[in-house]
């Protein structure tokens, strides 16, 4: 337990250093003594956080499924349209650790998502209004 607490403390400390860890020569020289770059970058999170996220995902699944079964049509589709991206965002943010990665990873994801959204949007506009 003491070891775990220590690791968490160690992991939490270099918040700002995470982004610069790679490619920073002065940081790297102390690397072998204080631990590797990965340990500095990583944040150990409590299991309970992930259980809570899982609970939220199951509840959201129940909401979309319930809405589509009991309110088929516009209401069901609208709920699915709102809840589904929310579920994906929860998985990406917590399970896939995006919240705790450096800005670069988030930027890459948003760039990719942006391209897909533009592509989907333009295609739909074409088919809906032709």
């Amino acid at each position, binding site marked *: 337990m003491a070891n775990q607490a220590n690791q968490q403390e160690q992991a939490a400390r270099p918040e700002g250093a995470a982004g610069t860890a790679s490619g920073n020569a002065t940081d790297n020289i102390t690397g072998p003594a204080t631990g590797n770059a990965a340990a500095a970058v990583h944040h150990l999170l409590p299991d309970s956080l992930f259980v809570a996220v899982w609970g939220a995902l199951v509840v959201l699944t129940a909401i979309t499924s319930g809405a589509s079964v009991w309110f088929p049509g516009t209401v069901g589709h609208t709920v699915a349209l709102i809840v589904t991206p929310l579920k994906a965002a929860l998985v990406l943010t917590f399970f896939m650790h995006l919240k705790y990665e450096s800005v670069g990873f988030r930027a890459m994801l948003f760039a990719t998502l942006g391209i897909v959204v533009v592509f989907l949007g333009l*295609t739909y506009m074409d088919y809906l209004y032709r």
Partner: protein
Amino acid sequence: MSVANAAGMTLPAGSAVDPAADPAAAHGAAHHQDYEGDKTGMWLFLFTEFALFAALFVIYGVYRIIYTPEFHHAAANLNVAAGVTNTVILLTSSLTMVLAVNALQRGENRRSMALLWATMALALAFMVIKYFEWGAKFEHGLYPGSEHLLAMDGGEIVFFGLYFVMTGLHGIHVLLGVGAMLFLLPRIKSGRQSATNYTLTENVGLYWHLVDVIWIFLLPLFYLTN
């Protein structure tokens, strides 16, 4: 890998080696785990996977606009309970996966392995349900190219075509994920994956969560469309 490891191993022992004087040694020691590099590569791969399914989503979207009533009618044939059950199974497997990564990072290799086995068991349960679901469709004469299917409306043929292609492609990804976990297990057991060297495990986890994310989108597109 072995060269980088050797550099990392010798540095603390041979303290006479000044990293600043030997850029190659310093580089080797500092980058024997290139966390950002490994992660970037994995994410780039995930984007290509995402793009693969995104293209199918575009096709689905266009045909749904053209054949809206047929899509709603065809979707009524799908088993909502099976779709929702499989969603909960996959979400739970994502939880066991992330807990397996977390356990490894705390140095609890045995717990990590147990959680990986649980993840694989859930993946298997997902595939078994999928098997019975597809089996029921086949029994009703619903499979690509079947006479019964080809006698249906154009829009319904497209719906079932997309259903089989997209859930099938997703199923292949589930099996590949299980393969990746089987690849991982001996590495965790032997300690090659550990509290200080866990990037491979994290990347397998990322892959598994992507498989989960794709299914999250497939659920409303196919099962909740009536």
